[in-house]
């Protein structure tokens, strides 16, 4: 099954980078969409079908933490899996985001294999 992926990051070059890394993983992707902050991401999720969200934490307007919190409190959106992609590799931050509702957490820097493993773990099936 091809995945529709939403990439949420305030840095345009990071969004390009994440898209390229997803391509390198060999995961089947149907459509990419992008958002520059949590608010824009919520709007996109209400308008389009998305299978997986990759989100940064530090963003203007609505950061990744608040985005995950709002997603969790929305009955229509809470089942969409979110993987946090952050420069913060501390155990405390990871646990906090997972407790809020994120399904996965990747620390930058990371290898494409790490992203692929995390996506497969979060979605529960290998995507060849």
């Amino acid at each position: 099954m091809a995945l529709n992926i939403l990439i949420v990051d305030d840095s345009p070059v990071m969004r390009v980078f994440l898209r390229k890394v997803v391509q390198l993983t060999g995961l089947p992707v149907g459509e990419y969409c992008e958002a520059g902050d949590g608010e824009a991401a919520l709007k996109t999720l209400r308008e389009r079908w998305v299978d997986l969200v990759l989100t940064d934490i530090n963003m203007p307007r609505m950061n990744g933490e608040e985005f995950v919190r709002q997603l969790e409190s929305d009955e229509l959106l809470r089942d969409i899996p979110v993987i946090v992609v952050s420069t913060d590799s501390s155990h405390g931050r990871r646990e906090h985001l997972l407790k809020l509702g994120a399904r996965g957490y990747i620390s930058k820097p990371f290898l494409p294999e790490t992203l692929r493993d995390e996506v497969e773990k979060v979605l529960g099936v290998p995507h060849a």
Partner: protein
Amino acid sequence: MKLKKYWGCRMHSHNFDRLLAPAVTTVLETMFFSEPLGPSDPDTNTTNLQVRVPFSGEVSGALEIRISKSTARSLAASFLGESEESLSESQIAQVVCELANMVCGWIVSKPGSQGCFDLGSPELLAPENQRPMGIPASQQSFAVENGTLTVSLYSSVAA
């Protein structure tokens, strides 16, 4: 949070010292398909790009990265998988901001570093603002493809 009025406190500098080189190596190898070629003298050319990332926590401060333009262009091309000629100045600056962000994040969130931190947004410094913040707690320069990369870490203890 109140910070001491001066920058350049040398507290815990030995911890930062041992983290700078592995941070730069890990980030360059993993995300930029590059590597430091060895230690180098700082390049003080005023046309260099300089990015500052503030952080706060038990120890607060800022990490600065200074990099020659040619190196920045080359690293940005590797990072984005594009040709050097196709990149805009803005894209190159954004990639250097990401580089600084990742090096800073790697250092401050390492177990055994100085506890829990919040990272601020990376800021590209205009040439007129590229003054040293004081005496860095730690500073190292690395030879990289086409130039030099200098990482400076300034710290200040929460009062």
